[in-house]
């Protein structure tokens, strides 16, 4: 989140807004999309939709996660609170540790772990925010550069064919469509490149096993 803190300050966020984004959105892809598009002065609807799509992975993540995490929970409404605590880290830790614990302990573990993560993330965001403008300019630029490098490498580890295709087609289409429309190019990239990759992935799969 340090990289996000730097990016947020560079994009014109106040410290409170940067911290609010970390704690409230609680999903780095969407936060980066928000900072980038806010800085570019895109239309509100385009920004909100891009943030949403950037974090759309939370849907399948929550679906895979909550039946296990909510086992034995009497008030199902609590699931809506637990869902807000899901991030890539807390989700992975919950899935790894949760099944070995009894229902209530699962939730205790998950909520405590998420609280620690959110605390650390807020500290990281603040550190990145203050580093920008305090540390020498090249270091600040390095912290901002952390954002694209980190996600590029996380994504480079993808081995599912359709998802890998989506990443490759998206990476090529993104800058091009940005030139066509700085406001809507990003969303168009997701919809066009994403559906194309999904479709290609299904075709490959159908051919794959027996050929």
């Amino acid at each position, binding site marked *: 989140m340090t990289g996000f803190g730097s*990016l947020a300050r*560079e*994009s014109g*966020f106040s410290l409170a807004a940067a911290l609010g984004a970390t704690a409230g959105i*609680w*999903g780095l*892809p*969407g936060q980066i999309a928000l900072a*980038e598009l806010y800085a*570019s002065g895109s239309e*509100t609807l385009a920004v*909100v939709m*891009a*943030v*949403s*799509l*950037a974090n*759309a*992975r*939370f*849907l399948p993540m*929550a*679906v*895979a*996660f*909550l*039946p296990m995490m909510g086992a034995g929970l009497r008030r199902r409404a609590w699931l809506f609170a637990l869902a807000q605590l*899901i991030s890539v880290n807390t989700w992975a830790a919950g899935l790894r540790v949760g099944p070995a614990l009894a229902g209530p302990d699962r939730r205790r573990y998950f909520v405590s772990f998420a609280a620690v993560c959110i605390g650390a993330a807020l500290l990281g965001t603040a550190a990145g925010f203050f580093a920008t403008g305090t540390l020498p*300019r*090249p270091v*600040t*630029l*390095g912290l*901002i*550069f*952390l954002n*694209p*490098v980190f996600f*590029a*490498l*996380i*994504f*480079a*580890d993808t081995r599912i064919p359709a*998802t890998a295709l*989506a*990443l*490759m*087609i*998206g*990476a090529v*289409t*993104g*800058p091009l469509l940005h030139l066509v429309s700085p406001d809507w190019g*990003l969303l168009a990239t997701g919809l066009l*490149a*994403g*559906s194309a990759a*999904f479709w290609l*992935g299904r075709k490959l799969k159908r051919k794959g096993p027996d050929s």
Partner: protein
Amino acid sequence: MTGTLGIWPLLLLAIAATYVWRALGVLLSARMNPEGAVFQCVTCVSYAMLAGLIARMTVLPLGGLAEAPLADRLIAMGLAFAVFFARRRKVLPGVATGVAAFILLAAARQAGLLGG
């Protein structure tokens, strides 16, 4: 334009727009297979958009990164990938290399060692 709305209303909308997926996840959980086609499609669209954003931030940055020439950004990104694959897909060494290379290049340019 976002400028007219201000950061706080926009932030609240962004938080709500992220929460929509979480809430939908609660409503659909236990009723749908997380490996199913619909979710794969959602993942593809999301990842394609993020890859587009990352590529755009590298090739056509808006803010501070635009101070560094394209060559620096590409070299640093290339080194990050090289180390990542050389170290059996470990993210941390790759990221550290990429960021360090980028800082060194920026510092060298600031010191006038590389021109431009």
